[in-house]
């Protein structure tokens, strides 16, 4: 079964445990500038929103890469950057409509979410509120469906 990261901004408190987990998983540092997931604050509205690559099927970044440094990981469905091949041309960062591939000056390569190469991604494991979960890719809407289903009035007395 293919899985997807599912974000529920309503549950996010802005603690950045996810960013730290991502930075540590990939770079052994707590420094969140190296995280591939970002949490944005819309302070005036009181909202925090975690955001990262959605792993498009027809991935713009993958198609844009002139040296085929971005490849599909068939096990997870992740579009992964092969650092050895990446030449740092940044074309993928322009191609991605969502801005989730980013250049890292320190390495001269780009980085993006790779779903941590299988298993539960570090961000989902670190999130204390359930704002990030790793669920069946075909059923990311299940929670919401269930919530609405619960509103269906099938109390016999009301018929």
């Amino acid at each position, binding site marked *: 079964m293919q899985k997807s990261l599912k974000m529920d901004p309503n549950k996010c*408190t802005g603690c950045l445990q996810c960013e*730290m987990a991502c930075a540590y998983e990939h770079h052994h*540092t707590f420094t969140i500038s190296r995280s591939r997931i970002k949490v944005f604050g819309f302070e*005036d509205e009181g909202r925090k929103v975690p955001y990262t690559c959605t792993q498009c099927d027809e991935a713009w970044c993958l198609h844009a890469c002139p040296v085929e440094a971005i490849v599909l990981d068939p096990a997870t469905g992740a579009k992964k950057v092969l650092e050895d091949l990446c030449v740092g041309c940044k074309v993928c960062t322009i191609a991605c409509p969502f801005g989730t591939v980013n250049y890292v000056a320190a390495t001269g390569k780009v980085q993006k979410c790779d779903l941590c190469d299988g298993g539960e991604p570090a961000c989902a494991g*670190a999130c204390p509120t359930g704002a990030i979960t790793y669920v069946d890719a075909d059923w990311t809407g299940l929670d919401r469906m269930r919530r609405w289903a619960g509103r269906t009035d099938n109390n016999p007395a009301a018929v």
Partner: protein
Amino acid sequence: MTWTRKILRVNLTAGTCQAEPLNLEWARQYLGQRGLATKYLVEETDPKVLPLAEGNKLIFATGPLTGTSASTGGRYAVVTKGPLTGAIACSNSGGYFGAEMKFAGYDMIIFEGRSEKPVYLLLENDEARLLDAAHLWGRTCWETEELIKHAHQDPQLRVASIGRAGENGVLFAGIVNDLHRAAGRSGVGAVMGSKNLKAVAIRGTRTDAYAPADPEGFFKAVAAAKAVLAGNGVTGQGLPAYGTQVLMNVINEVGALPTRNHKEIQFEGAHAISGEAMKQPRDSDGKPNLVTNNACFGCTIACGRISKMDKGHFAVKDKPQYHGASGGVEYEAAWALGAACGVSDLEALTYANFLCNEDGFDPITLGTTIGAAMELYELGLIKKEEVGFGLEWGSAEALVKLAEMTAQGVGFGKVIGLGSRVLCTSYGRPDLSMSVKGQEFPAYDGRGLQGMALEYATSNRGACHVRGYMVSPEVLGIPLKMDPGATEGKAPMLKAFQDLTAVVDSAGICLFTTFAWGGPDIQSMIQPALGGDWSLERLMLLGERVWNLERAYNLAAGLTGKDDTLPPRLLNEPAKTGPMKGKVAELGKMLPEYYQVRGWTPDGVPTPETVARLGL
């Protein structure tokens, strides 16, 4: 290890920024943040220095758990000599700023001297620059943060700044970071203002500055400790749902909610300003005051309140800039702006709290000082003509106007800005200042909670609840239930709380974890973070060392055991209602024992044996 082992020294007089190695020997004795910054202040400054003079220093300090995945590991403290008290001032804050200091590679920043012109520090990893802040002077904290981010085209900068209160010498001005997190108490913002330092903006992207000594052990301990927080009723449910405001109704029922400048001990309007009320849809617009909860960096509790005001409320009707979401009242602020002044208009409190965040001043001292002014007014000592309007008990209009005038530094706001001790003394009634060592009480009445009375009298930064939170045993039964009205056993328990709190602060984590965590939980993370031997015994001794170092600083600054006292109202005027009716604060029964368990002389001075035992 999770110290970066580097500090930044900024000489504002000379305009220089110089990195230097951290004194590791001191770090091993004082851990970090509160403890370590105090050690530097003690070693580098004259304790008799005037707080707002050039010779005072202002130290921003992180702890070894700051900027790690330990829950709540995002805190920094500001340590200096305080202008409100003339004692040591140490005020810590959450938000994201503290962790950014570590990411940039610094355990501490020491500001010394005084800049001739307003400046701000821009710190990007190894690059530190003092930049002209003329265009920022006169701006609020909120404007300053936005202008700096804009000027450098970097929305990821973290900014700590003073607002107009810090510039204007409000003696309880704080330093605000990330819009609504503050090193709020003791006037650390006034010291920053006196140095002409408007803001500190940091961007840290270093990946090699620090790492746990034993990563595997660290992550295991961190995960176990997070599970403890999640499973605890207070940290797992109460605080995320209601914030510290979970306490308003509880403390009122216990009979320890100081009301109208401590004249009473229960507030008839408590429910209206409680955490529960914040969640209720308002009559006026059908929406609740509370929008959501928020976390500081790394925090898995998330006590922060985000509120939206009623757009039709008189305070903001014509001010759309306050119609969006912003930092709502926590318990201490709601109490000070509310019960202490007899005001039960939650929206008015929320607005006053917004102003405290916007211009950087402490809502506890603001509210209690307004409460004192209201009593002086009722006594006929303050006249309507001096203020421009009446200061009747419970007047939300008066509260709102005085908060605005204090923020702007105009009219009677200039008087309020000096705190209740100066106010009450200037009207010939110093006894009406509800303060210890010049700093006002927070939201618990020492007549109702005897252990808190002892904590207030002995706290090194003046009256304070976050140095030894005796509310835990006296009300919540943590770690064990103590009779709030009794004096027996309070001295040794308070000593244990004060010492453990010094460890928590020095580590760089949030005190609120201790509703669930005990010493062993904290020790379990510090050990693998730093490596070497960090037994619980060693940490508790370290906490005691920090406490005594602060004490020694205060004594050298000119304070004495005589300052370990309470206003006559708490000692002599019995509580009028509630379970504690008839009680006064029985400080005399506890203080000698406290000195004894501390290893101090009957005058409150650490004995030579104590000094030697702690290696001071």
